[in-house]
């Protein structure tokens, strides 16, 4: 199974993104209550879903590393966490913008999604601190992998916790109904989701290629020196 070339994928991502923008702004109807600012939903939700997907991918690669000892899985898991963290940060930013547009505040604790991402963001930032304070080698790979696996266990548990916490920590002042999506909105959403997922995958591949090249370069240098 040959991987499709990176340029092809990147072009496809770009094309999809252009299509998505067109659909979002020109085809999908404007929301009655929130107006233009609601459009950020088309970007915010796919970004959040993509972040989850990246963390899930990282955990899967981590699992493979621990069970098969395949060398490649360490960098793949790392790249997954890295992309997930980037998209997680973007989720927080777009979510904050949406909150400002919808409710006039830059942050609210009553958005379960946003709070969950804050916890995850903290968790996965710590991943990098942990990883880079251990010497490169099998120990670092395994500890990183275990941490990545704990991350996906943390997602449902944290979500449940935040749901429970909203009962007593902050009264739910703002409500946000999930948008009832008409056909056009759904199409725009799906195209946007596809574009963002593809973009994330391209970034993942680019990062992985870069890290692999680094590793090969280091090995070559070592071989030449000895």
């Amino acid at each position, binding site marked *: 199974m040959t991987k499709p070339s990176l340029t092809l994928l990147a072009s496809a991502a770009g094309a999809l993104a252009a299509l998505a923008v067109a659909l979002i702004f020109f085809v999908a109807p404007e929301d009655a209550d929130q107006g233009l600012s609601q459009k950020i939903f088309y970007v915010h939700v796919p970004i959040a879903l993509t972040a989850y997907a990246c963390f899930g991918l990282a955990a899967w690669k981590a699992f493979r590393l621990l069970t098969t000892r395949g060398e490649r899985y360490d960098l793949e898991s790392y790249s997954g966490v890295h992309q997930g963290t980037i998209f997680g940060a973007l989720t927080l930013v777009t979510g904050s913008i949406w909150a400002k547009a919808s409710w006039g505040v830059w942050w609210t604790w009553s958005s379960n999604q946003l709070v969950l991402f804050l916890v995850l963001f903290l*968790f996965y930032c710590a991943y990098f601190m*942990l990883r880079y304070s251990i010497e490169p080698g099998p*120990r670092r790979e395994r500890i990183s992998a*275990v*941490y990545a696996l704990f991350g996906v266990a943390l997602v449902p548990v944290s979500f*449940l*916790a*935040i749901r*429970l916490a909203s*009962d007593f920590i902050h009264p739910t002042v703002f409500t946000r109904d999930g948008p009832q999506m008409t056909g056009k909105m759904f199409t725009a959403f799906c195209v946007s989701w596809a574009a963002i997922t593809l973009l994330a995958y391209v970034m993942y591949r680019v990062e992985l290629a870069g890290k692999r090249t680094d590793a090969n370069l280091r090995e070559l240098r070592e071989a030449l020196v000895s």
Partner: protein
Amino acid sequence: MSGYLGDVAALARKDLRLELRARDTLPAMLLFVLATLVVFHFAMPADAGDDPAYGLLWVALVFTSLLGLARAWVPEREAGALDGLVLAPTDRSAIWLGKTIASLAFLGAAEVVAIPAFVLFFAPLDAHALAGVVLASVGICAVGSLVSAMAAASRGREVLLPLIFLPLVIPIVVGGVGATISEEPGKFLAFLGLYDAVFAILSWAAFEYVVTE
């Protein structure tokens, strides 16, 4: 008691014996939790009421446990004893379980002092709150033993442990506070039980990979 559980018991006993001799971790935890409670008194506005205090109890417990967990693997690091344990035919998960049980004993001892002090300084605690403390302690020690071992394998130990520990215990804080102040403590206690089950099993299974190559 033979076999796996016998190993766990021997390892936990070893930790208790070490602490009884060195007497450095437990007194520090006791003093720390008392000092923290006093700081909280000064940190809260006069008309704050009981609820913020209940929240702060959980902050105190989490940070006190951090103090204990930071020292959890020090005896193993001193003369390479961790290598000795890893080399032994014992299941590596037994090493984790023994350490968790010992940590639980120390945290429990700190709580025996902290809880009455809290009731004295701030507000009463009911059976649900105490059940929450028990369940939360199990989760804290289960996850803490594993995460502390990760930090022990790294260079930046002191500063790293809180960073990797705190996000993982946020759900515990939610469960504990809920069990203390909510009208439906039952579901928070159930949640704590769920957390304990999930993360204890995960830690038990994953410990092997943290201490071996």
